[in-house]
């Protein structure tokens, strides 16, 4: 007995005692946290405590929306998605556009539908790709040289000629069109020579066919992308009208509050509508063809049935209807209450976030499954690109967004009284002597709770949730059981990104929009994740709430000052130091418990 005290089989200890001893550091940390929380509450003014907790929960709910997706993605795929904060930001900007400038959203919908429409005919492109694969080498060469020639001609027509006609502008930007033309022509000549070499060394083996197809695919992709980008810039989008955006800096929100926002008429076409439509369709078709040429499709269905044609036709038809009827659609939407528009914004932004997430996963993360560090690096790069894209597309970095009408009531009987006052239609209510904003502390927290319950139910009660949980445990085993884990990866990535975008829309009316908002919430979410245990979903929720509470309590103490023992002057941290507190907490918790509060042990 004396020699075997360390053995786990010792009968003198009950199971509960074993568990307590195993988790003693975890329990200690929890106890210390609860003690700190109670001490902080005791130190606050009496009528402040409820408001402070609710504000903490509000920040916690937003952080949770970012952290939940991050946690699911990290748990399942071992990818710490550092672009997650930027998807949050993208959600906010997309939501702002739908909410405040619905006309731009409608405008952007037309070219988007046209580019996506050809993807409905994917079997057709696959069949075409297989046909091209079977062509002789000379036909491949014809294809390459045509693509090269089209690209060169397009460049000459669009840039070289265009810049010489705007001679003044060319002079202002350096006017080095002569050498540039020479260099680009030289690059094209070298490309042509390389293509010639490829043509001459083609020997009909499987390898050379594959490499020729790869070249085909890339030339389709490049020409298609070029056509799409060129046509979109020629499309009459209000959003491209920089003057319009610059003229009324963030006045849109004020106008929408007053109900005086009038959609501006679109610019006239730079190209005739029919040509722009055709070029966009062609661009989408070329991109789809290029993507399906990247690998061979033996054994996959290449039959085009009426459903594919219906999908294609439906999207083109929708684009045309949207284009012709966008005036009346805008009028109708702008006539709606801002509450309805806000819910529309939530839906659309979440969908956009999910779509962007799925795109990132399929195109960028999937090729790097065998190089984990590079996945991390690529998400960093994607975040960087998203920030710059937002800056390019939206032009101005910062906006404010008005609260929807349902949460913005003032007048008789406001602020409302008590907890029931949340439903009184006022913008603020008084609860326990503290003043709360219905949107921030009511609606946002409610949405956070809904997502928590919804995702938990999804994880625990559905088949896909079971697959996800099993995937977190052991993806190889799940794959061995015949489940397509890759598809689940894409789904989870899309879902997590959608949740982050939802958080962005919800955050926009309370904290405003800026390109830096993503980084702030990503940091908070990472801290929450690390505190809760990186792969644990309830841990992410608990960590997020903890982060929110700490921030708000520190801010509250920053106003009154913390009385440090033996020092007469109370210590007053400035508001900029606030995030440091939660990060310090993360560092301390990770040092005591490397796998977080709720995480499993070392993996």
């Amino acid at each position, binding site marked *: 007995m004396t020699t075997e005290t360390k053995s786990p089989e010792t009968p003198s200890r009950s199971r509960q005692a074993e568990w307590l001893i195993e988790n003693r550091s975890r329990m200690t940390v929890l106890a210390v946290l609860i003690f700190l929380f109670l001490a902080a509450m005791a130190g606050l003014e009496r009528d402040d405590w409820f408001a402070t907790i609710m504000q903490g929960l509000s920040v916690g709910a937003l952080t949770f929306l970012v952290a939940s997706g991050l946690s699911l993605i990290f748990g399942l795929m071992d990818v710490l998605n550092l672009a997650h904060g930027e998807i949050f930001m993208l959600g906010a900007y997309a939501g702002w556009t739908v909410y405040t400038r619905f006309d731009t959203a409608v405008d952007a919908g037309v070219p988007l539908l046209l580019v996506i429409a050809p993807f409905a005919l994917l079997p057709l492109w696959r069949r075409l790709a297989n046909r091209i694969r079977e062509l002789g080498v000379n036909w491949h060469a014809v294809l390459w040289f045509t693509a090269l020639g089209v690209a060169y001609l397009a460049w000459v027509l669009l840039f070289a000629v265009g810049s010489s006609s705007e001679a003044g502008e060319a002079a202002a930007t350096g006017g080095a069109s002569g050498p540039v033309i020479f260099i680009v022509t030289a690059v094209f000549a070298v490309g042509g020579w390389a293509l010639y070499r490829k043509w001459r060394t083609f020997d009909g083996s499987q390898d050379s066919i594959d490499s020729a197809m790869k070249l085909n695919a890339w030339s389709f992709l490049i020409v298609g992308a070029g056509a799409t980008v060129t046509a979109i810039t020629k499309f009459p989008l209000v959003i491209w009208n920089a003057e319009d955006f610059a003229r009324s800096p963030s006045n849109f929100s004020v106008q929408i509050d007053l109900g005086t926002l009038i959609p501006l008429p679109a610019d006239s076409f730079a190209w005739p509508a029919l040509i722009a439509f055709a070029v966009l369709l062609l661009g989408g078709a070329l991109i789809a063809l290029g993507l399906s040429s990247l690998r061979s499709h033996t054994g996959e269905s290449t039959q085009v049935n009426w459903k594919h044609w219906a999908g294609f036709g439906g999207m083109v038809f929708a684009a045309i209807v949207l284009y012709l009827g966008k005036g009346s659609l805008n009028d109708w939407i702008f006539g709606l209450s801002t509450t309805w528009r806000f819910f529309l914004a939530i839906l659309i932004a979440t969908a956009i976030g999910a779509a962007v997430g799925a795109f990132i996963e399929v195109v960028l993360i999937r090729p*790097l499954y065998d190089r984990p*560090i590079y996945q991390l*690096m690529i998400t960093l790069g994607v975040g*960087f690109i998203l920030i710059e894209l937002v800056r390019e597309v939206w032009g101005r970095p910062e906006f404010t967004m008005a609260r929807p009408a349902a949460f913005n009531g003032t007048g008789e009987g406001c602020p409302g009284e008590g907890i029931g006052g949340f439903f009184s239609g006022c913008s603020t209510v008084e609860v326990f002597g503290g003043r709360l904003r219905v949107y921030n502390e009511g609606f946002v927290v409610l949405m956070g709770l809904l997502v928590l319950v919804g995702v938990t139910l999804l994880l625990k009660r559905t088949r896909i949730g079971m697959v996800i949980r099993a995937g977190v445990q052991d993806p190889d085993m799940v794959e061995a059981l015949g489940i397509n884990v890759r598809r689940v990866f894409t789904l989870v990535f899309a879902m997590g990104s959608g949740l982050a975008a939802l958080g962005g829309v919800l955050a926009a009316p309370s904290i405003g929009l800026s390109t830096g908002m993503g980084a702030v919430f990503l940091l908070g979410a990472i801290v929450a994740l690390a505190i809760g245990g990186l792969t644990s979903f309830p841990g992410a929720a608990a960590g997020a709430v903890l982060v929110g509470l700490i921030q708000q309590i520190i801010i509250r103490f920053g106003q009154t000052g913390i009385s440090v023992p033996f020092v007469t002057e109370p210590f007053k941290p400035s508001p*900029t130091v606030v995030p440091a507190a939660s990060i310090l907490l993360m*560092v301390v918790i*990770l040092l005591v418990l490397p*796998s977080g509060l709720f995480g499993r042990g070392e993996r």
Partner: protein
Amino acid sequence: MTSATLTETTSLAGWLRRRRGVLGMVALMVAFPFIISLLIDGNGFGAVINNDQGNARFLQGLAIEVFILALYAISYDLILGVTGLLSFGHAMFYAVGAYTFGIMLKTHEMHWAAALVVVLIAAILQAFLFAVVLPRVKGITFALVTLGMASVFWIVIQSSDLQEWAGAEIGLQGVKAPVWFLDTTNERFAFYLVCLAILALVFVAYQRIVDSPAGKVFNAIRENEDRALMLGFNTFWFKVLVLVVASITAALAGVLHMMHQPIVTPNVAGLGFTVTALLVILIGGVGTISGAIVGAAVFRLLQFYLDRWYGAASELLIGLAYVALVLYLPYGIVGTWRVRSVRIKEGRARLMSLLGGGGGNEAEPAPPD
């Protein structure tokens, strides 16, 4: 045979021969401002010494920025590429050097040598701060903890509580050059030579470190730390050594940055600046020490000229280039060169034989074994 190799490795002549690439590069870079002054500005050699305005002076400034960035990236390469420690707090190493040196000079009016000693102590201390967490956390958790510590530093440095020392979010400014060879405005060529000399020395030292027995242990830690432990190496102290060396190098880069730029903003402590280091060594080639220098030159020049040509869109282009690099050129420039050097040499030989006319078979190099 043995004695010949021995003399080659020990004698000065042998050392010079093995380092001829570095020495040639240094000589070229010393001559670089004079060449620019003569060929582009049309001034004499005196213009460089006299610190006259012109392309020579401007390009020296750009080159100094490249040297400083290379110094910073080379230290990150030692941590990430050679030893495989995923640290996201590297910008803190740099910022501590810059801020400590600036505050010591400006607020405490120290002698520059004393300030350098303080920077050295601060660098070693922060390396130990990072090292303290090493036994507890590994992999992604280590990245998070280091990111957390650097973020705390970043937040504290831009808080208004430290306004009088660090200048809050505006940054530290108004630090005068303490000695003539650190004066980038009035004695640019001297400062240029100082930066070049430091970079060359650090580069040679780093190559020496990587090739030493300790360097082999660093690689072993990257490949399989458990196996290195099994072989009897106390990997913790090797990692501490790496952190200390990298911290000192990065702090030195920060000191030079403080001297070269009129103002040091809190951005140099942020995650974005760590990402810059990552980007640089990714361009050059992760784990190849010389890649950091190549990457720094490519990155800084690309950044500068893209900004000049495309303005605001340049950041987007850099981001796209970064993603393309990660996807299609994972070994970087130097890494890819090393992987393909055999094929490139073959191609060059073929080209030479083509230009020489006939006799292609004789010029064919021996197949690689």
